[in-house]
């Protein structure tokens, strides 16, 4: 019958219109500033530097090995190596970045820096309310702005953070075991060979 | 010679004069509609309401748009390159002025019209309807026939020749 399709369509929209007042679950809009959608775990925005312990500059895992700077496709990471060293989490003295800038307006959040970083020092953040009034300096984040604690990392990416920590712990345990084995071998060699002055003992692994 | 009549007359004359003298044809049509609306106001002032509204409906609504479509289709919308008036414009306007002079003389020297102004004849649409249906029934039929013929004729004339599709 002529117009049957129109009537069906009108009935459908009327059902939608009245339904939206009756059942609340039809309306899926999230009123943003007041309500917030649950944060999706795997979402990522811009990278940040992870630090262990409490002091952001001391606990930085980054040893400024420049791999991420070389790998970054849009070239938005700029690192300057420090001249002196500082002990890292396992106590081994390592270099640290004197300056570590990421130009957030250039970064395309491709996560390549995270994949290539051998020290799990850089991870992807998912904070998105980052508006700034100045287009240049405000979007060039320095080391202080990038450094965030490992606990924050656990907050935003719990599973991934747990996996990373487990890996680090395992790596440390292996180095400690290797260190212990090399110490035992050195001790055995020392017994066989004439006594040589003992090297300062490695201070073992103190797991955080 | 009330003020209202003068305004309407001025509107009409300005509109029509502009329609005949402007270069760009689209401006001509727009000023023509101004003139025609002025004419409709004159009809209303004369008490012929029905004719005034028909005039606006037919001319402003249809004929002006038709002329505009024709201008669009014959690609003469922009101001023409060659002068807008034909070579024999002088003699043309001279003839028009002579015609106006003759008419004006004829009107002014006509028998002095009666000074008493008859009252405004109240014509209602019903009277027009009755007159159309009774006294003027035959012209109404003929007009209907003529309009249909013109409708079909205009379409046939303007339709492109039906090229036999390959």
């Amino acid at each position, binding site marked *: 019958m002529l117009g049957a399709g129109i009537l069906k369509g009108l009935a459908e929209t009327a059902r939608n219109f009245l339904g939206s007042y009756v059942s609340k679950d039809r309306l899926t809009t999230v009123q943003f500033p007041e309500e917030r959608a649950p944060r999706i775990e795997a979402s990522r925005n811009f990278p940040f530097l992870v630090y262990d312990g409490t002091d952001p500059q001391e606990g930085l895992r980054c040893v400024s090995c420049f791999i991420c700077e070389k790998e970054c496709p849009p070239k938005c990471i700029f690192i300057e190596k420090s001249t002196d060293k500082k002990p890292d989490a396992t106590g081994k003295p390592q270099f640290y970045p004197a300056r570590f800038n990421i130009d957030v307006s250039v970064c395309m959040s491709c996560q390549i820096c995270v994949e290539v970083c051998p020290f799990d020092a850089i991870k992807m953040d998912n904070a998105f309310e980052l508006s700034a009034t100045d287009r240049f300096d405000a979007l060039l984040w320095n080391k202080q702005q990038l450094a965030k604690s490992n606990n924050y990392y656990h907050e935003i990416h719990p599973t991934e953070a747990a996996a990373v920590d487990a890996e680090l712990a395992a790596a440390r345990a292996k180095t400690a075991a290797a260190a212990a084995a090399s110490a035992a071998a050195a001790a055995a060699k020392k017994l066989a060979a004439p006594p040589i002055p003992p090297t300062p003992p490695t201070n073992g692994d103190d797991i955080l | *010679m009330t003020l209202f009549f003068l305004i309407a007359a001025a509107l009409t004359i300005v509109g029509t004069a502009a329609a005949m003298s402007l270069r760009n*044809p689209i401006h001509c049509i727009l000023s023509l509609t101004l003139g025609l609306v002025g004419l409709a106001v004159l009809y209303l002032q004369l008490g012929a309401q029905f*004719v005034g509204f028909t005039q606006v409906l037919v001319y402003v609504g249809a004929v002006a748009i038709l002329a505009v479509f024709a201008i669009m289709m014959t690609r003469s919308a922009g101001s*023409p390159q060659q002068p*807008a008036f*034909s070579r024999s414009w002088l003699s043309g306007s001279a003839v*028009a002025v002579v015609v106006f002079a003759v008419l004006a003389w004829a009107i002014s020297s006509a028998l002095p019209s009666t000074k008493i102004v008859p009252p405004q004849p109240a*014509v209602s649409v019903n009277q027009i309807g009755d007159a159309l249906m009774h006294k*003027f029934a035959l012209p109404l039929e003929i007009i209907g026939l003529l309009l249909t013929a*013109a409708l079909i004729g205009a379409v046939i004339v303007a339709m492109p020749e039906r090229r036999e599709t390959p």
Partner: protein
Amino acid sequence: MSPLNAYLLLSALLFSIGLAGVLTRRNAILVLIGIELMLNAANLNFIAFWRYGPNPAALTGIMFAIFSIAIAAAEAAVGLGIILAVYRHTKTTDLDQLNSMKG
């Protein structure tokens, strides 16, 4: 200058403006507009004579004006149809160039 004379003078002026347009304009469509104007001038006369004439109840003036408006509309339609056909044939609406009757 009785009101009737004023209207007659006005319609005479309208008529001559239309005539001037018809005789001087180059574009065919504007010539047609000139003819429309002349028809309108005649209409104004009809209504003026109906209003100030002796027997307004007969409604002849109004009837004539209505029929003339209808005819003018039909004439405009057919006229523009012809202009379109001529334009399609000769690619111009300039009347000075349309001086040959050859098909």
